[in-house]
């Protein structure tokens, strides 16, 4: 029984989400033994291949370096994964937008029913996954011989990035870009920690009122080393870019501390943050549903409370 994890990387290094996916692979391996291999695919991705070889628990790294694999186009990458799939019983990827875009295409090509967003491994063929915006957890057993799985990375503790010494194998392949081509991208740049792996997250909702007003959260984010998030309402209103959205269909976060500012607490928002260890809510509406899930709720006008909180944090910490 062996497991192939499709690594997410930037050609030079692995993304932390890959380490959480390897952690899930380890749990599967523990239920039946078997080697974990990491696939590093792309164009000029040798650096990431070397980084992958150091990951704790990985027995082998397979590098597929081809011009057609630049930009992670699913139409090119899926066949590359399928070309390797014969050797594996499990094909895993983190449940990021990249993993979600790719793996179902792989699954269909292999005639396998994918299991999305697993949160736990019960047995070699049995997994727990969230449904209905995380208001129910389904334990499902797969009857497919091969399993194609995406991993909810907040549910698994990342393995160490160092300590391993895997063999790196380069496989050749030629993949075309006839079906789709990359035009461009607009990526958010921030010095702050990445939203899905930050220890503290402070999020703003519709109550913040404008894109400019979102700056009100900066002082606290600086003080606590927090990532900044947003509710769907705030993103729809144009206050923040889409990649800040926390929720059922946005980013799923599970930090030590989640501070929800001016967020009412719709079902869909909760789906993205209700596994946070400690939840704080600041909202002037005491009936806001967010207070039902908050460990600490402050009913107050955020425009007074947030600066006051920043001042208090600067005093005490």
């Amino acid at each position, binding site marked *: 029984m062996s497991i192939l994890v499709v690594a997410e990387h930037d050609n030079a290094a692995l993304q932390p989400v890959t380490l959480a996916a390897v952690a899930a692979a380890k749990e599967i391996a523990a239920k039946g033994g078997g080697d974990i291999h990491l696939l590093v695919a792309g164009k000029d991705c040798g650096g990431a291949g070397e980084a992958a070889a150091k990951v704790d628990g990985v027995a082998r790294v397979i590098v597929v370096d081809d011009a057609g694999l630049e930009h992670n*186009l*699913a*139409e090119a990458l*899926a066949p590359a994964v399928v070309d390797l799939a014969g050797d594996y019983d499990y094909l895993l990827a983190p449940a*990021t*937008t*990249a993993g979600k*875009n790719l793996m*179902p*295409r*792989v*699954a*269909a090509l292999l005639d*396998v*029913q*994918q*299991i*999305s*967003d697993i949160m736990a491994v019960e047995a070699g063929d*049995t997994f727990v996954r*969230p*449904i*209905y*915006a995380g*208001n*129910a*957890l*389904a*334990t*499902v*057993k797969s009857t497919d011989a091969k399993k194609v799985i995406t991993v909810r990375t907040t549910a698994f503790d990342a393995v160490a990035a160092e300590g391993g010494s895997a063999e790196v194998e380069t496989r050749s392949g030629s993949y075309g870009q006839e*079906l*789709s*081509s*990359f*035009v*461009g*991208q*607009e*990526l958010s740049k921030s010095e702050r920690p990445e939203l899905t792996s930050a220890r503290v997250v402070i999020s703003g909702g519709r109550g913040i009122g404008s894109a400019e007003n979102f700056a009100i959260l900066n002082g606290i984010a600086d003080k*606590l080393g927090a990532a900044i998030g947003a509710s769907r309402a705030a993103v729809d209103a144009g206050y923040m*870019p*889409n*990649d800040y959205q926390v929720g*059922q*269909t946005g980013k799923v976060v599970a930090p*030590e*501390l989640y501070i929800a500012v001016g967020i009412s607490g719709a*079902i869909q928002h909760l789906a993205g943050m*209700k596994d946070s260890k400690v*939840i*704080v809510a600041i909202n002037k509406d005491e009936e806001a549903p967010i207070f039902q*899930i908050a*460990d*600490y*709720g*402050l009913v107050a006008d955020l425009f007074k409370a947030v600066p*006051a909180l920043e*001042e208090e944090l600067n005093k005490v*910490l």
Partner: protein
Amino acid sequence: MKILVPVKRVIDYNVKARVKADGSGVDLTNVKMSMNPFDEIAVEEAIRLKEAGKAEEIVAVSIGVAQAQETIRTALAMGADRGILVQTDVAVEPLGVAKLLKAITEAEGADLVILGKQAIDDDSNQTGQMLAALLGWAQGTFASKLELGDGKVQVTREVDGGLETLTLTLPAVITTDLRLNEPRYASLPNIMKAKKKPIDTKSPEDFGVDIQPRLETVSVAEPPKRAGGVKVEDVAQLVDKLKNEARVI
């Protein structure tokens, strides 16, 4: 151009799902059901393309129980031209849905299939991608903007780092994200007109597709409950609790 829009009948997005006491699933008795919100966005996008003269016909398809007819009627009321219901009581999985949709897409000669990126009940986010694979077509997932050109479609996608733009060759499969558009409400005259639009009822067997589930649901449970919270009086009390009680700062 003919556009196929699959639509799914799901729990209404305002309803918090409750797990059955016997752990066999989610309790849907007397629960309000609606068109999957992402599918509404898909229907809306197809209609806008037709209104812009880029498509001649929009076919709404649903796979499910007899009441899914109401979901198709909603699509027709919004502006789709006709509907197909593949009636079955089996809870068809994404792979099975994709196989049925492939058969219908090919039978209809559609050049574009627009789906919601995920259904808010199963939250799998797979069907569009699977359909694209089975058809051998390009896929533009999590689309927040579409521009149809000659033999191509430019798609802007919402991805983890921001936005990405791709050009896809047609025919293609698109899955919709939240900000692609704001779906229209069907007007009363259009709801009345929709009653006359045809819905063809079929069964999975008509397509020779195996829709046997591959996954067995062993049990469905509620997520762990959080301990109740407290209200704090002011920020001083909040910071004190975070530091000395919760110990997270």
